[in-house]
């Protein structure tokens, strides 16, 4: 089997377009996860014991079952109850929920790392809990969370190929389609691997410098 450069050049535009979709899927999934994760984290910090326990169990469940199975579940179960989700919507819900569970743990760690004195100071100057979180606690919880958040951004990106199982037109799906049409799998799959390698190495470096930047910005070394 020889590497065919002409074929590579031929399929490259299509692969690059699919890469845009992959990045979009990762971005949307991450946005959902970031918001939902905060809700999961905050729900575990209320006074209601039963809510804490329930959310805790949901998070554990989401974290310890395979994402690919969750994707299938969301995609196929909807129609049974009369809700048909498009592959994109189902995929984004599944990946968003899965990573929300991971991010909630990151946030929780971040919030818990804020020293107790900060809370006492908030009480002393009469801030409401909402104000305390928004102005004092969460901004300080952010820097220790950035590394974890960044790692999961890369993880979510590397998990997007799983969306191809329900037919989301991302990079892996494009490679499968090209491979099937031309009976050539070497080039498409190798290109997918290279694209992933380049983007994840690049973004890992980017996240490291962002982490340093945010620490400096908030005056925390």
């Amino acid at each position, binding site marked *: *089997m020889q590497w065919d450069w002409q074929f590579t050049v031929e399929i490259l535009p299509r692969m690059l377009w699919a890469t845009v979709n992959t990045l979009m899927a990762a971005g949307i999934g991450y946005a959902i996860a970031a918001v939902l994760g905060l809700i999961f984290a905050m729900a575990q910090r209320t006074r209601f014991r039963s809510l804490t326990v329930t959310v805790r169990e949901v998070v*554990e*469940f989401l*974290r*310890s*079952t*395979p*994402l*690919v*199975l*969750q994707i*299938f*579940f969301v995609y*196929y*179960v909807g*129609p*049974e109850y009369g809700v048909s989700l498009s592959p994109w919507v189902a995929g984004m819900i599944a990946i968003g929920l899965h990573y929300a569970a991971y991010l909630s743990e990151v946030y929780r760690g971040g919030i818990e790392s804020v020293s107790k004195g900060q809370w006492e100071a908030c009480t002393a100057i009469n801030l409401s809990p909402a104000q305390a979180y928004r102005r004092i606690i969460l901004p300080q919880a952010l820097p220790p969370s950035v590394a974890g958040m960044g790692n999961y951004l890369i993880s979510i990106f*590397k*998990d*997007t*190929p*799983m969306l*191809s*199982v329900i037919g989301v037109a991302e990079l*892996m799906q494009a*490679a*499968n389609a090209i*491979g099937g049409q031309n009976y050539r*799998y*070497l080039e498409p*799959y*190798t290109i*997918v*691997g290279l694209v*992933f*390698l380049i983007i*994840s*190495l690049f973004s890992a470096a980017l996240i490291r410098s962002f982490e340093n930047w945010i620490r400096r910005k908030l005056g925390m070394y």
Partner: protein
Amino acid sequence: MTYISFLSEYGGRFLDGALVTAEQFVCSLALAVFLAHLAGLLLLSRTMVLKAIAVVYVEFFRGTSLLVQLFWLFYVLPLFGVTLDPFLTGFLAVGLNTGAYGAQLVHGAIKSVPRGQWEAAYALSMSSSKRMLRIIIPQAFVIMLPAWGNLVIELLKSTALVALIAVPDLMFEAKQMNSSTYLSTWTFGTALIIYYVFARFLITPTMRSLERIMARRMGRA
């Protein structure tokens, strides 16, 4: 059809699938632990070539997505005349991938064994291999066990992907049953629960008790 009669009809297939998942899990775990230690030690090596090999291995398998690696091994390798059966391909891919993540845990743990331990072993004029085996690795093992707990669950989840190259594991069986019965909630739901039970009530307690046993043997509990 009630859920009970569904289970009595298809329960056997869930069990068959779960058994294959368990086999995949054990095989890939053994491979991952071996590779993680090998690469983790090579990362510490002062011989540039050995270190470079380990760095390339770790960055490559962490940087490209598991699904891509799996498909590459399954579809591309035969083009070069190497045909592996799906079961072997499955646990090779999962083991190689998780091993790369594990290598970083091993590397980090060995480096966090206190400096004095190295010096003491040196003072007793132990050979470097004896020092590694009897002094450093046992202590590193205790340090890295909690992190391995998470990684082992990730590994279990990763094994679900081998269904996509037609290894008849739990995920695969669930997919097959879904396409013949269209009972998506029950098929995928049951599979999700089996994975959850596997992770939460088998892996997590095992790792916890391993942590306790090791801590006691190190005289730290």
